[in-house]
């Protein structure tokens, strides 16, 4: 009997507190990220400030009343500034350090305090475009992950994915006859 009352009280408590439980991140639309569109987004002037959201598998750049949508599936490469640095400062970078003309060093387009997101995408005619966005540090990686989850391609997997594939590599080799 006492156990039954406890259960009822617990159920009532859950019912009362349920409005205060925050909805999960998956259900919540992502907050707009303030960015500078440096170049390459069709229909938008170079160096335009705006915000990016990801809605229904599209990247939406909004600047005032202007809204440009890019389907994640049309993106053939999404790369962050950190990806580029890892690629060049990593093992490959060490090998190219001895190459002439300063070829082993990293040539950055912007000051280090900015995060960059570079997207190569195809238009309806198959023409290749490249768009560059700059944003606050640490925001590009999350955007990239979300775009990849919606079908965008990337030539450089994220750090965690890269680690996973490198650990799995020996197994893959063993499977070969």
């Amino acid at each position, binding site marked *: 009997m006492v156990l039954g009352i406890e259960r009822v009280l617990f159920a009532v408590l859950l019912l009362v507190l349920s409005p205060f439980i925050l909805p999960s991140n998956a259900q919540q639309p992502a907050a707009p990220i303030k960015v500078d569109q440096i170049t390459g987004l069709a229909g938008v002037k170079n160096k335009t400030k705006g915000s990016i959201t990801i809605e229904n598998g599209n990247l939406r750049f909004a600047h005032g009343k202007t809204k440009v949508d890019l389907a994640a599936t049309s993106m053939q490469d999404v790369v962050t500034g950190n990806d*580029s640095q890892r690629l060049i400062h990593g093992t490959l970078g060490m090998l190219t350090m001895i190459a002439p003309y300063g070829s082993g060093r*990293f040539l*950055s387009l912007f000051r280090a305090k900015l995060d960059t997101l570079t997207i190569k995408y195809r238009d309806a*005619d198959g023409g*290749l475009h490249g768009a560059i966005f700059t944003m606050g540090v640490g925001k590009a990686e999350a955007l990239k992950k979300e775009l990849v989850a919606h079908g965008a391609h990337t030539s450089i997997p994220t750090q965690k994915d890269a680690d996973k594939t490198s650990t799995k590599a020996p197994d893959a080799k063993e499977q070969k006859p």
Partner: protein
Amino acid sequence: MTRILGRGIVFSLLSIILFAGPGLRAQDKQPAKIKASSISVTMIQSDEIKLPAEFQVSLYENLIQQLQKKGGFQHVYREGDRNAANAADLVVLHSTVRGFKEGSERVRQLTTVVGATSINVHCEFTDKNGKSLLERDLKGKVIFFGANLRATYDFAKKAAQVAHDNFSPTAGT
């Protein structure tokens, strides 16, 4: 008397150089233009160096914008554009980054003398079948003010100028 004669000769020679020189140079500057009404731009490549994606894309986009503004072509196609297949007198521009000298925006701002960034790009214009028509090594620089982004703009301007000077939709007609 001899001194006057000598000065006269020197003056005459200088006059000839001053007045005839620009005319001769103008003749040198006008090579026969190659007929081309449209151009297809391929993505910038980098064989010897690892080029960050943002740099590659900035070079490509600036190049397309400058060719549209100053190249003198009726159409500028992007890599992969299906419409380029039907274009008459099409040239294809292949650009390869060969090296760079990294400067510093901060040093440039402080001194305005040192800290220049430069990027060396090899440009090859070919016809549809891949036959080479023209090759040039171009350098994009940012010397005084601005981020490294300006080096990509400087290169694009120079490449568009080369295209304008060597190709024309009306050449050979």
